[in-house]
């Protein structure tokens, strides 16, 4: 009697659990929960923590910290060094964007043309460009360190020597060091622009070209009046993404020049790293992080606006 009762209870219990799990599975929350937890804990929480930290004088070598309000920001904004870092970051990002997008466009057009004409070598070219992109950032820094060895034994300096130039101090001259980081960055990043633009080219309706041809447009006119206008959204999106990417570059410069010589290649992310972990000023580092976060958010806003997210979701 008692066992039958218990059996019934257990069965009903199971039934209820099953019913509950069935209802749960028809609700989006369980599906999204792991993602929400992961994003909350490892993205949102650190970002909030960065903002709170930037309002304190927290340090890596001292226990406890005090609330200092916006002190870190006012000090940062009155520091000429900060503006120097901003200037270097801007030069790095701006040159990178121009080179990435321009080279990416040329390569995408060349590969597209090669595929249509059945030329040899378009696949090898594509693979070479993409190969540079998957090399880990730290290793890219080292690869270019080896390429740009400053004596006549360095590969680049050897070939320049054959032309009667050099040897050039690629990493110890402040201005050349910045140029070297831009070249290494371009070496890595062009693949992304190339693929994006190549994807864009595939979506240009062929009938537009045919119509232009019927109207007697030459190759240049077709490029100027069909290809470019059709590519405009892709070019814009690529530019925004490359800008965000370039502004946050860290590993490549960290390995290639370490921000030096002096502070000639110290972009914002390296500046932040140095303040926080080499000078132990976590509060100040966090303030720089928040500045970077604002720049990122601003550009993301532009990107989302361009993306016309209303249609997509």
């Amino acid at each position, binding site marked *: 009697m008692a066992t039958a009762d218990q059996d019934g209870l257990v069965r009903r219990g199971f039934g209820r659990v099953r019913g509950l799990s069935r209802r749960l599975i028809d609700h989006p929350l369980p599906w999204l929960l*792991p993602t929400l937890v992961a994003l909350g804990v490892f993205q949102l929480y650190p970002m909030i923590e960065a903002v709170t930290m930037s309002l304190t004088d927290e340090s890596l070598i001292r226990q406890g910290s005090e609330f200092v309000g916006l002190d870190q920001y006012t000090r940062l904004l009155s520091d000429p060094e900060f503006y120097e870092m901003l200037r270097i970051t801007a030069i790095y990002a701006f040159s990178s964007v121009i080179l990435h997008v321009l080279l990416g466009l040329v390569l995408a057009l060349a590969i597209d043309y090669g595929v249509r004409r059945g030329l040899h070598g378009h696949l090898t070219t594509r693979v070479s460009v993409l190969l540079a992109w998957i090399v880990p950032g730290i290793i890219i820094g080292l690869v270019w360190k080896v390429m740009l060895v400053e004596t006549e034994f360095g590969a680049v300096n050897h070939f320049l020597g054959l032309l009667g130039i050099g040897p050039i101090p690629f990493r110890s001259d402040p201005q050349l060091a910045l140029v070297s980081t831009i070249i290494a960055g371009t070496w890595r990043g062009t693949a992304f622009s190339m693929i994006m633009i190549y994807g864009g080219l595939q979506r240009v309706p062929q009938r537009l070209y045919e119509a232009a041809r019927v109207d007697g447009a030459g190759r240049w006119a077709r490029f100027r009046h069909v290809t470019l206008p059709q590519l405009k959204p892709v070019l814009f999106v690529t530019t925004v993404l490359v800008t965000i990417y370039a502004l946050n570059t860290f590993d490549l410069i960290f390995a290639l020049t370490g921000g030096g010589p002096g502070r000639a290649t110290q972009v914002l992310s390296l500046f932040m790293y140095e303040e926080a972990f080499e000078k132990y000023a976590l509060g100040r580092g966090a303030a720089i992080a928040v500045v970077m976060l604002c720049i990122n958010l601003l550009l993301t806003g532009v990107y989302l606006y361009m993306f016309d997210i209303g249609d997509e979701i």
Partner: protein
Amino acid sequence: MTDDGTERTDGGLAGEEKTVTDPASRTAFQRVRDRLPVIGVRPLDIVVYIVYGLAMVFFAFPVLWVVSASLRPEGELFSYPFRLFPQEVSLSAYEQVFSAGMMTWLFNSTIITVLGVASIIAVSVPAAYAFSRFEFRGRRGLLGLVLMFQMISSVIIIVPLYTVMTSLGLIRTRAGLILLYVGIQTPFSIWLLKGYFDTVPRELDYAARIDGCSRLQTLRHVLLRPIAPGIAVVAIFNTVLTWSEFVLAYTVLGTESDLHTISIGIYNFQSQFGNDWRAIAAASVVGMLPLVIVFIGLQRYFVKGLIEGSLKGQ
């Protein structure tokens, strides 16, 4: 085009031989250019071939040079004459790298990459399913938030990361780093997978539901097959990202050298060996080789994923 040109096309090759003797009216360039249509090459083809050549040199040469530098015996890299290829192949630089702990770094990177990528897929497939198949309040906003996290660089969180990971008890652990990668890399994966789910018609779901499948069974038996290419793309992408990542790993793993990944190991190795380019080159080769192998085999999917993941709605 000059008169010579038309004459030659009419007269064929024999005519061309004659016109060559008149250098005043025809430069070498023009002669080559006029000959092109005969062998089926347009002038623009030449320009494109030059672009290919320059691109291959710029993008492939550094990698090949590093391979070449790593295979030299000690001292050859800095002796006259300059050699593109090693005169004599030596693996001593590789011995040096492996005795510095390369096996540990490879092991750590492999385990973190495999577990990390598996976790990212396990988390992002259900989320992408939910975004594609459920209608719920706040869906747009949530998806926008996911996209926003995809755009914000992870470099920004390194300053508070030490404190955050310490308070979670995850500092200096592989598990902590793996979970961190899940948080950082799922947005892109969700975005990409949602695109694949959206291409599967909902009628398939309804049919399965009528046959008595639960949502979980529908996902497993009906939807998993059509989205499999998307899962492959997500796996390749995250493998590359996880294997290459440096600054988060450097911050989370700190000085715990038993846990160091390939990027950290190689970075420390080069600070230690300074100007030993041969050894640095060997370390670089070992560090990129696994990715290069994976990539060469799968680059087609890679390209597809890049376009689809970044350019939705265009």
